């Protein structure tokens, strides 16, 4: 494969020809801010915050859409670059609510992060502000387009990852809005609530309804785990605060990357359902009565022993579960074969 040797901020790096300047820089630990760029999506060069200086180039090209060529000399840290990035941020926040103290995204918002890094706290540009109605007429999302920076990531995720193309830009100029076709509420669209758009939005425009007000990102413990639904094996983070699951966020699964379906992203709610059984129950005269673990387990052991003595081991059958873990299945397997002494164990492999 052809390689290109480029120099970025004085460091030389060899990359496969065609690699973008942004990827080359990030590969050697040079930080370049980017809003519309997402490694899982196509690059569009829309936000222009990733601009750099390239020797021999008249303007400042966007590094996410500029391919490395052999001998290229790039600078990411010049005053002109910083100036340009600052101006972009000032333009973006000129029409941004700046309610960071209550915004869910605070702490993980890229706009906030870059404003912090470039020392932008207010905008010299004052003009009209959007007053879009908030779309929250659905069980899962709150869409506040007043916070949208028109990076288009959500649109590309829906089209390129999910293949549904529910979202696009509508209207033009100042009124441009990212959302479902014909600017309908998400509830009236063909959305399948996979949450991919939420996962890629760099700001607080797209939020998960159930997580709002449940905790700041830095207070939340993320527990990497595997989805309990279909057999694909998607991996995600359970977000836990004060001993409760407050939501699911994307991580980097072997199979699914950052993407999930509606079940993985929102199906965790059964865990904390009020209908969960919490104590053993023993049926007495046709009615279930609460019992202690010791009572229940002693009764079970006694009855299973009795069955075995009276009718033989083969009068016992175990149904194991395709929903339970390997360890639980192994234990029930060992229980059935070694403790009871029968091979009568099966599970609903058919589902």
């Amino acid at each position, binding site marked *: 494969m052809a390689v290109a040797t480029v120099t970025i901020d004085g460091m030389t790096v060899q990359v496969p020809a065609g690699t973008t300047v942004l990827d080359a820089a990030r590969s050697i630990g040079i930080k370049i801010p980017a809003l519309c760029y997402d490694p899982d999506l196509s690059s569009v060069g829309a936000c222009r915050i990733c601009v750099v200086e390239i020797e021999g180039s008249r303007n400042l090209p966007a590094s996410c859409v500029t391919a490395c060529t052999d001998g290229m000399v790039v600078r990411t840290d010049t005053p002109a670059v910083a100036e340009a990035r600052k101006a972009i941020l000032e333009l973006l926040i000129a029409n941004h609510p700046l309610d960071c103290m209550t915004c869910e995204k605070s702490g993980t918002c890229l706009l906030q992060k870059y404003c912090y890094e470039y020392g932008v706290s207010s905008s010299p540009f004052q003009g009209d502000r959007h007053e879009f109605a908030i779309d929250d007429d659905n069980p899962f999302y709150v869409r506040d387009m007043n916070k949208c920076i028109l990076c288009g990531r959500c649109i590309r995720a829906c089209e390129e990852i999910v293949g549904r193309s529910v979202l696009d830009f509508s209207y033009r100029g100042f009124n441009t809005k990212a959302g479902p076709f014909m600017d309908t509420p998400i509830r009236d669209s063909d959305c399948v609530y996979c949450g991919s758009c939420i996962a890629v939005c760099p700001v607080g425009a797209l939020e998960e309804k159930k997580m709002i007000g449940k905790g700041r990102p830095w207070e939340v413990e993320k527990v990497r785990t595997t989805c309990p639904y279909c057999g694909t094996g998607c991996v995600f983070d359970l977000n836990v605060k004060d001993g409760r699951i407050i939501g699911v966020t994307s991580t980097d699964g072997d199979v699914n990357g950052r993407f999930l*379906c509606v079940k993985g992203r929102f199906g965790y709610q059964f*865990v904390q359902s009020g209908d969960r059984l919490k104590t053993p129950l023993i049926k007495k005269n046709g009615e279930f009565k609460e019992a202690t673990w010791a009572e229940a387990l002693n009764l079970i052991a006694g009855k299973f022993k009795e069955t075995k003595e009276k009718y033989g081991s083969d009068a016992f059958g175990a149904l194991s579960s395709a929903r339970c873990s390997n360890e639980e*299945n192994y*234990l029930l397997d060992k229980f059935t074969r*070694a403790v009871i002494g029968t091979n*009568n164990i099966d599970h609903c492999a*058919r589902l």
Partner: protein
Amino acid sequence: MAGLATSFGSGAMTNPINDVNDSELLFLTGTNATEAHPIIGYKMRQAHRRGAKLIVIDPRRTELAEEADYWLQIKSGTDIALLNGLMHIIIKEDLQDKKFIEERCENYEALEATVAKYDPEYVSEVTGVPVNILYEVARLYATTKKAGIYYTLGITEHICGVRNVMSCANIAMLTGHLGKPNTGVNPMRGQNNVQGACDMGALPNVFPGYQNVNNDEIRAKFEKAWGVALDGKVGLKIPEMFEGANHGTVKAMFILGENPVLTDPNSNHIRSGLKKLEFLVVQELFLTETAEYADVILPSASFAECDGTFTGTERRVQRVRQAIVPLPGQANWQTLNQMMIRMGCLTNYKHPGEIWDEMASLTPSMAGINYERIDKDGLVWPCPTCDHPGTPILHTATFSRGKGLFQGIEHVPPGEMPDQDYPFLLNTGRILQHYNVTTPYSAGIMTLWNEEYAWVNPDDACELDVETGDRIRVSSRRGECSSKVRVTDRVPKGMVWMSFHYTASQTNAVTSHILDPTSGTGEYKVCAVKVEKLAS
């Protein structure tokens, strides 16, 4: 997965999920991937948009069928005839991979003799697929290098499920589409840990790792490790257990996290069996229809409350982690362990990792996997040693059983077809938003999709005088249920399609009692019903 085990010696997906990404041809039969396996469905759609050819075989017009290069709307239950017909053409046009057949497979003559009878005209008549399409699809599959077969329940839930799977194996061997990247025969498992439950030996004939209970040497190994004498006689499958319960030979049962009353075909038979048991223990998250029959219910901890592992459909073992304190006060492995100890098995496990390690020490195909190695990313078995990277693609040099076994498989019509009294064909499946039993307890999901809708073709809807939203009664020779109607041309005329996610519409009271003779799988996909409009 008895079918693939017979053909190849191993019953799992032959290739990894991410092989979909750079495939040149995706051959989907009986799988509504965008709903049943959404993430795999996304990948299929992406691959198709990048130029991979997409062939979808399904009586329903699924989302992927809509996008497919070829959508073969076969008559329900005619998969084998179709596959035999495709193989007939491949052999007739001399497109088979002779080297692969010669070197890697056996019993080719039997296949040749069987498929010889399936000439395109006959197959077209049986399946409803035009002759020219049969030719095009056969040529495309045989001549495309990176061509993989993917299937789910559509294939395995027929009376001939096992033979359907073997037919898929046949056509893949015939064309040499095995043991290489982006090829293979890939069953996508429906539940998170079906693969793992099978791998762990939750089957009547095998110990963990598909080690046969009737093999003396293997039994001796487990006897030594477990410290007891073990029975070498193959145990009962689920339907046989309920048969035994109904006949009084099975007296006590332990049911872990399953709700057969809702999810098994012919639930009335299950109910009567459960009623007759002398003692039933159910370990569950919720008070399910099945748990109602229990003498003792043990509360389960959910996936978020226990440490452990799941094995995904591509044989990838991944960690599941405890995120919150178990609601019932203890994890499921602790409950099971306490039950064992009370009955005299004194091993006291301190962490699920110890349980895994004990299993792995007895299971050569997983011996190289431990919690440390899969802390971040999973590992794909076979993984025999701790320095082994895992085996995403099976059968690269030889098949697990040595040679791939061709089998002549004849088309068998479904066990029950529509007739005068029961003129509709009932087909069942899964919808995207739900998953057997837990999603109904997830509030957000229930607000959007909270009841069953039976799909009915517009022509049939006219005759029945129903519109979307009306209620119907669906009855078979075994039972009945009621449901709202959705009128849609996604189902062909004469077919009714329903899911089985809702307690209020117990679809499985209606479904067939006819089982696949080899696997015991219920024939969920096809049964004859009648449909009547109900006053709303």
